[in-house]
C-alpha cells in the first residue's frame, strides 16, 4: 500500500475535523452562510453539482442526517441515490469493499457514509476514486454534525473563542463529542466533558489528544460560567449493559433541567444532536425554552452539508 499524501487526501474527503485547520473550518462556516441564503430563496436550488451522483450509504438507521444530506445534495442539483444496508446485497454477505467498487463502477462521484464501525469511512476513502463524507462512524467521528454545531453557536454568539462549552452525557460512545472536541478546541473554545465515569473513562485518555479539555463528574459545578451546553443522547440500552444503575438516577444527576440552566451563564445556549430522549437527558421545558438552539441546528445542517459538498467538488477541479 502506498504512502498517503496527506494534503491531497484531506482535500478530497471529509472524514473528521482532526485534519482541518482553523482557517479551513472558518472557510466552511463562511460558505455555509452563502448556502443559507440560497435555502432562503423561493427556488432553493443552484446547479453546482448538476450531473454529479451522490450516494447516501447508510449502514445504520438515521432520519435527520440522511434527509439533511439528501436535501443538501438536491439543492445543489446532484443526482441522489439512497442506499441502506437493508434490502441491498449487503444482506447477502457482500463486503463493504465490493459495495464500494460496485458504486464506483456505477459512476458514483461522492459517497456519504454512516457505519457502525469506527474507521469505515477511512476504509471506503482508500478504495474509492471520488470523495467520501463521513456521516457518522461508530464512536469515532461525525464531522458534519460538529460543523453545524459550530455554525449554530457562531451564528448566535458571533464567535467561538474563549467560550465555555460543557458537553454532557454518554461521551464514551459519542462520535458527536469527539468531532466537536476537534472543532471547538481548534476554534479556541474551552471544553468541559461531564458524565459519570462509566460513560467517560479516565481523563488522560482524553487529554492525550485534547490537552486542554477538562473533565467533571458533577454537572452542577461544571455548568458554572458555561456559555453553551451540548447534551448527548443517552441510549437506553446502556443501563442494560451495566453502565448505569437506572435512567432515573441518571436523570437526577445529569439531565439538563431549567434549574440547572440557572447555574450557567444567564443566556446559556443548549444544543442537542438528536434524536432526543425527552425527560432523560434533557427536559421538555428546556427544549421549548429560549435557550434551545435545537431546531436551528437541524435547519443549519442542510446548509453546512451543502458547503461541504461544494468544497469537495471544487477540490476535485484543477486549480
Amino acid at each position, binding site marked *: 500500500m502506498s504512502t498517503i499524501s496527506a494534503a491531497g487526501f484531506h482535500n478530497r474527503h471529509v472524514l473528521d475535523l482532526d485534519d482541518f485547520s482553523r482557517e479551513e473550518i472558518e472557510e466552511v462556516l463562511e460558505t455555509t452562510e452563502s448556502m443559507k441564503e440560497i435555502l432562503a430563496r423561493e427556488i432553493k436550488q443552484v446547479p453546482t453539482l448538476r450531473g454529479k451522483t451522490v450516494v447516501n450509504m447508510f449502514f445504520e438507521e438515521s432520519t435527520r442526517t440522511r434527509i439533511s444530506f439528501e436535501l443538501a445534495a438536491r439543492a445543489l442539483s446532484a443526482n441522489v441515490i439512497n442506499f441502506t444496508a437493508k434490502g441491498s446485497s449487503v444482506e447477502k454477505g457482500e463486503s463493504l469493499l465490493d459495495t464500494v467498487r460496485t458504486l464506483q463502477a456505477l459512476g458514483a462521484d461522492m459517497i456519504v457514509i454512516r457505519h457502525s*464501525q*469506527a*474507521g*469505515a469511512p477511512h*476504509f471506503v476513502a482508500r478504495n474509492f476514486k471520488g470523495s467520501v463524507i463521513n456521516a457518522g*462512524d*461508530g464512536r*469515532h467521528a461525525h464531522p458534519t454534525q460538529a460543523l453545524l454545531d459550530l455554525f449554530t453557536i457562531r451564528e448566535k454568539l458571533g464567535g467561538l473563542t474563549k467560550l465555555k462549552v460543557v458537553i454532557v452525557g454518554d461521551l464514551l460512545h459519542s462520535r458527536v463529542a469527539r468531532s466537536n472536541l476537534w472543532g471547538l478546541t481548534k476554534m*479556541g473554545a474551552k471544553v468541559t466533558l461531564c458524565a459519570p465515569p462509566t460513560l467517560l473513562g479516565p481523563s488522560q485518555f*482524553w487529554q492525550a489528544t485534547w490537552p486542554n479539555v477538562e473533565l467533571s463528574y458533577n454537572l452542577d459545578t461544571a455548568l458554572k460560567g458555561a456559555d453553551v451546553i451540548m447534551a448527548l443522547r443517552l441510549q437506553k440500552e446502556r443501563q442494560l449493559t451495566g453502565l448505569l444503575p437506572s435512567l432515573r438516577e441518571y436523570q437526577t444527576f445529569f439531565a439538563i433541567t431549567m434549574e440547572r440552566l440557572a447555574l450557567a451563564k444567564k443566556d446559556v445556549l443548549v444544543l442537542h444532536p438528536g434524536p432526543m430522549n425527552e425527560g432523560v437527558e434533557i427536559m421538555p421545558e428546556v427544549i421549548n425554552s429560549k435557550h434551545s438552539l435545537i431546531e436551528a441546528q437541524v435547519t443549519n445542517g442542510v446548509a453546512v452539508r451543502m458547503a461541504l459538498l461544494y468544497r469537495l467538488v471544487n477540490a476535485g477541479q484543477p486549480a
Partner: protein
Amino acid sequence: MRYLIKNGSIIDPAQRVAMLGDVLIENGKVVQLFDIAESALEREALGQAPDVEIIHARGCIVSPGFTDLHTHLREPGQEQKETIATGTMAAVRGGFTCVCAMPNTEPPLDNAATVRQVRQIAWQEGHVQVEVVGAITQGRQGRNLSEMAELVEAGCVAFSDDGSSVADPAILRNAMAYASMLKVPIMCHCEDTQLNKGWAMHEGAISTRLGLPGYPAAAEEAHIARDLTLAELTGVHLHICHVSTAGGVALIRNARQRGVHVTAEVAPHHLTLTDRWVLGSLANYNELSAAEIAHQASSGQAKRRKKKVDRDSVRIPFWLNPKLLPPYDTRTRVNPPLRTEEDIEALIEGLCDGTIDAIATDHAPHTLVDKECEYGFAACGISGLETALGLVLMLAHCNALDLMNVVAKLTEGPAAVLGRNPSSLRPGSRADIVIFDPDRPWIVETAHFASKGKNNPLQGQQLKGQVMLTMSGGSIVYRHDEFGKVANPVQPSKLNDILPKD
C-alpha cells in the same frame, strides 16, 4: 556429505559460547566447533577436503536454529490461510527449525487421529520439525477435557485452547491437574472476554481518539492472575502465551518468585510496535503546523503543548515509521492488541531478568478477505515468522537487549519451556542451524513472503538483520539468494561487546 561453516560469529547460548570460528557438520549432526585462533592446520585441511562443502559465513552470526512455541499453521481446515508446507517454508526463512503448531484448526487438534494426521503431513511436506500442541478442551469449547493422555501418546508436547481462553476456572483447574500427571505444560491464552467485549484495539488514549472499543490491559492481567493461582493450586507447568502488558509481566515475576512453575513468551510485535500504529498516518496531525503553533503561542498555550510532545516522544529509538500505514489499517489488529511504550519497556525488562523465557511469533496468517474490511470486523493476527528476527534484532541494535540474550530467547528459552535439552551447537547435536547477518538492511515486502498470510503491518518498513541460511538436521532448507555471492568482510557491529577481544 560434510559442511564446514567457515569464519562465522558463533553464538550458542546453551554453552555460553560466543566466538569467531567454524562449525563442522556431518551426517546431520554437529561434529566440532573450531575457534578461529586455534587449530589452523586442521581447519585448512578440512577446507581442502573434497567431500566438504564450505559455507562462508564471515560477518554473519551462526547459532542454533530457532524454536517457535506459537505458530498457527492452519492445516487442516483453513488451507486458504496457510498450509503446513507454506508455514514451515516461512519458518525456515525466519530462521526457525522447530515450530509448535497451535490446535485452533478445523477440526481442532483435540483428538489423536487429527494430531497424527498433522504430524504425518508435517513429516511429508514440512520443511522443519513440527511439534503439535493439543487442545485443552474438546472442540476448544471450554467444557469437556480432551483426551489428553492419548494426545500425548500421539505426540502432543503441550496443551492450549489458544485463540480462546478457558473461561470456566473449574474446567481449567481440572485440565491443569490432569496435565500435571502427563508432565506437559498448559499454555494459556489469557483474555477475559467479559472485560473486553466488542474490543477492536488496546484501551487507552488512542482508542479514545479513534472511537474504537478498547481491550483494557486488565482484561489480560485478571486472567493471568487467575491462571497463576490455579497453577499454584495444581502444581502444573503453566506457560503464559503472548504476554503483552506491564502488569502481566509483574504478575508472572511475582508468581515465579514464590515458586509457581510458570514460564512465559512474548511476541516480536508486542516488543516493538504500539497502539500508535493503529493511528497510522493520522499521527501526523498530532504535530502542529507552523501556523497553528503561532496561533497557540498567541493564546498562551504553546508551553503546555510542548510538554505533550515531550511525553509522546519515543524513548526507545526504533526507526520504524507507523505513518507509512493509513489509519485503521487492519494489519495492526492482533490479539492481544498492540499496547503502549510502557508495556514494551516492561516486556524487555521481563526478558532481561528471566521472567519471560521465550520470544514466540504467534504467527497468524490470514487471507486478504479476512483483513480487507472494517477494522472491528477484521480477523486478528500478524503473519510474523518472516519478520520476527528483524524485529527483535532492533532491540539489540538499540541496546535494549544484548544479542546473546536475543538468540537465547529464540533457542534455549523455548526448548526449556518444552522441557527439552536446549538446541545447541554442542558436538553430537542435531544440526539445526541458522546463519544470519545481523546488520543487513532489507525492506519488508509481504508479497514475497513464503507464508500465504501477507497480513503484516511492517510492509514497506526497513528492518536490519536477515536470515541467510537455515539448516535442518544437516540439510540446507533455505539459502538467501545473495548469500555467499557478495563478500562481507566486516564483523557484525553488535558482536564487539559479546566476543572476547582478540
